[in-house]
C-alpha cells in the first residue's frame, strides 16, 4: 500500500503528494482506475505526473501506485504484424477488453503471454556471455528470425540454460551469473525503457541508399540507409500518401509506421492495405514486416508525446538483431504540439510560438537515434527515420520545420500548388535537397551504372533551367523564347509528367526499380540531345513536337513493364526514327 495520493488534477497533469521517493521518468498508476502516468518533475514533496489517459474522474486523495521503474516496453517476438497505441498496448487486445471505443485503465502487455514460440537456444551451462551474445532465436514470421541477444549491462557465466523447445515469452531460458554473483534471467522477451537510445557498438558512415522505388526520391533526392529525412507539407499535399508509399516499397527488412496524432481512418487504411499487399521481395503480406503504432489525434495527448519514443525503441530493438529498419513518423508536428500542450500545463516558460525551449533538443535526440550502426553483436543494422512535418499554414519558417531541418539531411518539401495540379508525389524539385547524394554516388556507380550520376545531374540541371525560364514565360509568354529554350521547356515537361510524376495507384508505376529509372532518364536525355542537334541547325522545334514522340515518352512509365526493360529499345528506335524523319524533311 503506497502513501502517495493525488493532490491536484489539471487535464493530463496530476500532482502527487505523500513522499519523496518517486524518481524522474518513473512510471506510476494514478487513481482508482490505475491510469498509466509518468513522473515529469519533482519539487520537494510535490511530484508532477503526466497521465497517458483521460483523467476524468480522478480526485484528490485517490492513491497513486509507483512501479519503481521508468516507462518500459515489453519487447519480444509477436510485435511484427501487430498494431499498438502510443504506449505500446496492443489495440486488438484493447478492443477485446473494452469494445470499439477505447476504455481506460486497461494495462495489457505488448506481447501475447500465452503463445509459445519454437525456440533454439544457443548457449550452454558454463558458457561466458557478454552484451550482444545471441542466446536464443525463434521464427517470428516466415521472413524474420527473432534473435534474442544478451542486453547491455549483463555479462558472466551461464549457470542454467534450457534445451531447444517451445517457450512463452516470459519463460526463463537462460540464467547468467555475473562476477558479483548476481543472477540475471534471460527470456524471449525483455523490458526496455523507451526514453533513452539503446546501446550499440559503433556508428558506421552512411553508404547505401534506401531504395524506395519512387523516382524523384531515388534519383534526385536519395536517402541513405541509416539516414534521417523530413517530409514537410501543408495539409492535402500528400504527406501521408508519400509515407505510405515509402512504407510499402522501401527495401528495409522491417517498417515501423507511427501514426502520431493523425487520423483514425488512415491507420485503418494502412492496416487494411498492408495486410493485402505483398512484399515484392518475399511475396509475403507487407503486414508481416510492419509494426503499426496508432495514437490518433483524439487519443490522449500525453501518450502521443510518448509514441515517438515507443516507435524508436521498437525500431532500435530490431536494429540490434541486425535488421534494416525504417521508421516512418507521421507526423512529428503533432508530437511537437503535444510537447507544447504539456509544457503549457506545466506552466513552463514558452519560447517561439508557445513551443517549449527544449523543442530543438528533443527533436535532435529523436533524429540522432537514426543511424547505420555496428550492433553489440558485431552485425550491421540501421534505423532510417522519415518524419512528416505539418507546418502551420504551410509556412516552412515555423519552429518545428526550422528545427527539424537542422537535424535531418534529406528534405522532401511538398508543395501545395503541385498538389492542386494533382502532380504526385508533390515533392518540389526546387525546394528539396538531399545531402546524401555525394556519399551515395559510388554505390550508384557500382550497383546501377557509372552513368547514373551523370544522368541525374543533367536531369536536375534541365529542371533548374526550366524553372528560371518559367519566370520569363510567366511575364511574356513562351512564344518569343528562342528555339533551344523552348526545347528545354518541352523536355522539362516530359521530365515532370513522365518521370517525376508517379502514379501510386498504377500497378506498374507504383514501384519502379532503379534500372528502369535509369533507362527512363536515358531515353529522355537521348531525345533531348537529338532534338537539340536539330534545333541548333535551325529546324523548328514544332516539327519534332508534331511527331508525337514527346507525348509517347510521357506515357512510357505505364507502358514498360518493370521486369522487361527491352521495351526501351523500341522507345530508343522510335526517338531515332522520329528525329531522323524530321531531319530528312529539312535537309
Amino acid at each position, binding site marked *: 500500500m503506497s502513501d502517495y495520493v493525488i493532490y*491536484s488534477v489539471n487535464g493530463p497533469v496530476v500532482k502527487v503528494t505523500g513522499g519523496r521517493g518517486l524518481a524522474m521518468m518513473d512510471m506510476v498508476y494514478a487513481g482508482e482506475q490505475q491510469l498509466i502516468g509518468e513522473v515529469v518533475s519533482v519539487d520537494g514533496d510535490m511530484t508532477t505526473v503526466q497521465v497517458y489517459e483521460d483523467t476524468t474522474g480522478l480526485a484528490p486523495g485517490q492513491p497513486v501506485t509507483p512501479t519503481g521503474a521508468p516507462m518500459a516496453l515489453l519487447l519480444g517476438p509477436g510485435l511484427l504484424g501487430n498494431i499498438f497505441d502510443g504506449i505500446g498496448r496492443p489495440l486488438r487486445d484493447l478492443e477485446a477488453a473494452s469494445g470499439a471505443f477505447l476504455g481506460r485503465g486497461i494495462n495489457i502487455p505488448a506481447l501475447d503471454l500465452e503463445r509459445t514460440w519454437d525456440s533454439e537456444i544457443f548457449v550452454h551451462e558454463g558458457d561466458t556471455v557478454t552484451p550482444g551474445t545471441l542466446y536464443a532465436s525463434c521464427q517470428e514470421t516466415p521472413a524474420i528470425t527473432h534473435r534474442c541477444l544478451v542486453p547491455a549491462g549483463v555479462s558472466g557465466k551461464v549457470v542454467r540454460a534450457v534445451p531447444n523447445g517451445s517457450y512463452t515469452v516470459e519463460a526463463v531460458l537462460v540464467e547468467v551469473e555475473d562476477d558479483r554473483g548476481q543472477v540475471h534471467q534471460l527470456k524471449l522477451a525483455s523490458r526496455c525503457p523507451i526514453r533513452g537510445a539503446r546501446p550499440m557498438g559503433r556508428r558506421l558512415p552512411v553508404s547505401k541508399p534506401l531504395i524506395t522505388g519512387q523516382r524523384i526520391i531515388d534519383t534526385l533526392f536519395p536517402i541513405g540507409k541509416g539516414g534521417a529525412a523530413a517530409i514537410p507539407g501543408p495539409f492535402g499535399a500528400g504527406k501521408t500518401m508519400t509515407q505510405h508509399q515509402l512504407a510499402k516499397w522501401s527495401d528495409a527488412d522491417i517498417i515501423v509506421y507511427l501514426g502520431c496524432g493523425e487520423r483514425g481512418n488512415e491507420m485503418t487504411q494502412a492496416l487494411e492495405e498492408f495486410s493485402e499487399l505483398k512484399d515484392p521481395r518475399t511475396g509475403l503480406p507487407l503486414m508481416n514486416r510492419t509494426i503499426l503504432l496508432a495514437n490518433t489525434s483524439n487519443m490522449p495527448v500525453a501518450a502521443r508525446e510518448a509514441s515517438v519514443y515507443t516507435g524508436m525503441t521498437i525500431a532500435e530493438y530490431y536494429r540490434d538483431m541486425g535488421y534494416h529498419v525504417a521508421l516512418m513518423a507521421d507526423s512529428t508536428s503533432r508530437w511537437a504540439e503535444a510537447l507544447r500542450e504539456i509544457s503549457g500545463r506545466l506552466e513552463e516558460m514558452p519560447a517561439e510560438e508557445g513551443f517549449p525551449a527544449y523543442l530543438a533538443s528533443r527533436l535532435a535526440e529523436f533524429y540522432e537515434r537514426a543511424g547505420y550502426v555496428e550492433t553489440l553483436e558485431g552485425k550491421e543494422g540501421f534505423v532510417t527515420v522519415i518524419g512528416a512535418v505539418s507546418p502551420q499554414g504551410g509556412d516552412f519558417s515555423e519552429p518545428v520545420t526550422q528545427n527539424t531541418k537542422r537535424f535531418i539531411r534529406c528534405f522532401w518539401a511538398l508543395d501545395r500548388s503541385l498538389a492542386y495540379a494533382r502532380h504526385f508525389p508533390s515533392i518540389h524539385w526546387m525546394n528539396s535537397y538531399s545531402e546524401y547524394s555525394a556519399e551515395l554516388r559510388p554505390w550508384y556507380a557500382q550497383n546501377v551504372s557509372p552513368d547514373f550520376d551523370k544522368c541525374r545531374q543533367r536531369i536536375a540541371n534541365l529542371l533548374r533551367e526550366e524553372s528560371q525560364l518559367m519566370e520569363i514565360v510567366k511575364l511574356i509568354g513562351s512564344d518569343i523564347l528562342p528555339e533551344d529554350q523552348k526545347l528545354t521547356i518541352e523536355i522539362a515537361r516530359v521530365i515532370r509528367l513522365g518521370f517525376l510524376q508517379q502514379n501510386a495507384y498504377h500497378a506498374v508505376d507504383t514501384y519502379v526499380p532503379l534500372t528502369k529509372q535509369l533507362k527512363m532518364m536515358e531515353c529522355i536525355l537521348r531525345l533531348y540531345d537529338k532534338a537539340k542537334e536539330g534545333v541548333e541547325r535551325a529546324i523548328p522545334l514544332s516539327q519534332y513536337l508534331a511527331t508525337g514522340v514527346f507525348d509517347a515518352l510521357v506515357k512510357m512509365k505505364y507502358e514498360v513493364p518493370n521486369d522487361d526493360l527491352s521495351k526501351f529499345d523500341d522507345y530508343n528506335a522510335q526517338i531515332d526514327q522520329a528525329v531522323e524523319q524530321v531531319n530528312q524533311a529539312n535537309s
Partner: protein
Amino acid sequence: MRLEYTGLSDLNGSLVALEGVSGVSYDELAELTMADGSTRYGRVILIEGDRAVLQVFEGTRGMSLENTRTHFTGKPMDIALSKEMLGRVFDGAGRPIDGLGELFPDERRNINGSAINPVSRLYPRSCIYTGVSAIDGCSTLIRGQKLPIFSGAGMAHNELAAQMVRQARVAGDDGEFAIVFAAMGVKNDVAEFFRRNFEEAGALQRVVMFLNLASDPIIERILTPRCALTAAEYLAFNHGYHVLVVMTDMTSYCEAVREFSSSKGEIPSRKGFPAYLYSDLASLYERAGMIAGKQGSVTQVPILTMPNDDITHPIPDLTGYITEGQIVLERNMDQSGVYPPINILSSLSRLMKDGIGEGYTRADHPGLSNQLFASYSKVQEARSLASVIGEDELSALDKQYLRFGRAFEEYFIRQGQQEERTLEQTLELGWVLLSILPRGELDRVSDKELDAHYKEGAFERLKEA
C-alpha cells in the same frame, strides 16, 4: 444525503472557485443553485487539494460569493439519449427547448465520448451522392468521412450545406438516414433557414437539432458539438442510422474555446488560440467514421467561415490537418455569381480515391476527375499569363484552355439550388467539357477511356441543345 457547499471563494469570467471541498473529481458536473432558486450547471476544470475551479455553462451573471449553493453530482456531464430524439430541438447543452417536455432516456452518456479504436474502424468506401457536380465529380463525399466546407462570411455555405442534406443519397439502399444539426453561435435566421429547409424537404422527423445561437452563453457553445456528436454516435451505432452531422459555425466554436482559454489565464499560441486547439478539434472531428460490425455511420459536414478568407488562419488550418479533405468556397467565384462557388483546385476529398471507380461508381471516374483537376489547373496558369500579356497574345492552346475554363465554371460547377444531377450526368458533362481541349492534352486518362468517352465537338452540340 445531498451535500451542498454554500458560497464561493472566487469569481472570474465564467469561472468560479470553491474552497474546502472534498471528494470532488476532475471533469465532474456541478449544480449551482442561485438565491432565487434557479439552477445553473458547471464542470470541474481544475482541482487542487481542497480547491475546485468550475466552469459555469450559463455564465456567472448575477452570482456573488455568497448567494450560490453548489452541489457536486459525482459524475461527468452527460446527456439523455433515446431514439425519440429524432424530430426534437435541444439547446446547446442538450436540454429540450421545443416545449415537448423532457426526453425519456434509454441511456445517459458522457458527452466527451471515447476515441474509436483504430482496429475497430471500418475503412469508409461507399459514396454519398449529393447531386452537386463539383462535389460528386471532383471531391466525392464518402460515408463515414469528415468533409468540412471552408467558406467566408457572406458566401453561400448554408445554401450548399442545405442542398447537400436535401439531396444526399447513398449508393445502394441500406439503412436509414438521419441528420444531426448543431448550430454554434449562428444567427437566429441561419438556424431558421436550416429548420425551414429540413421542413420543406419533409425531413424534420429525421432531424435532431442542437441550437446554441449567437446570443447564447459561450460555454454552452463548447458543449454543443459534443452533445450533437454523442447523439449522432448513439443513433448510428445503437440504432443503425446513417447520420449526417452538419455543424455550423466551427469558427464561432473555436472563438468560444479561445475566450474560455484566456479567461483561465492559459498561455496562448497562434492568434491567441490555446495550444490544445488541435487536440480539441480532433476530439470532435475524429468522432466521424464507421465501426466494423455495426450498421450505421457518422458523416460530418462541419462549416467554418475563414476569417478574412484566409485559409492559413489557425481554424481552417488545424481543421484541414484533421479532416479528410475540404470543400473550399471562393470569393471570386461567388462574386461572379457562380453557385455553388466551389474552388475545385483547393478542394479535396481524401477518401474519394478508395470509394470511386470500378465497383464503386464508374470505371472512368478517377481518371476523369484527375483530368479535370489537371486541365483546370492549367486554366489558372493561362489566366495569370493573360492578365500580364493580354488574352490576344496567348497561344492558340492557351486560348483553348481559357475557353475550357469558362465552360467548366459555367456548365459543370454552376448549378441551381434545386437542381439535382445524377453521377451519370456529372461524369458525362465532364467528358463533354473535356472535348473542348485537344485529345493530346489529356494525359491523365487512358487511351481506352478516351476512345470510349472523348467525342470531338460534343461541347458545341451541348451548347446548341
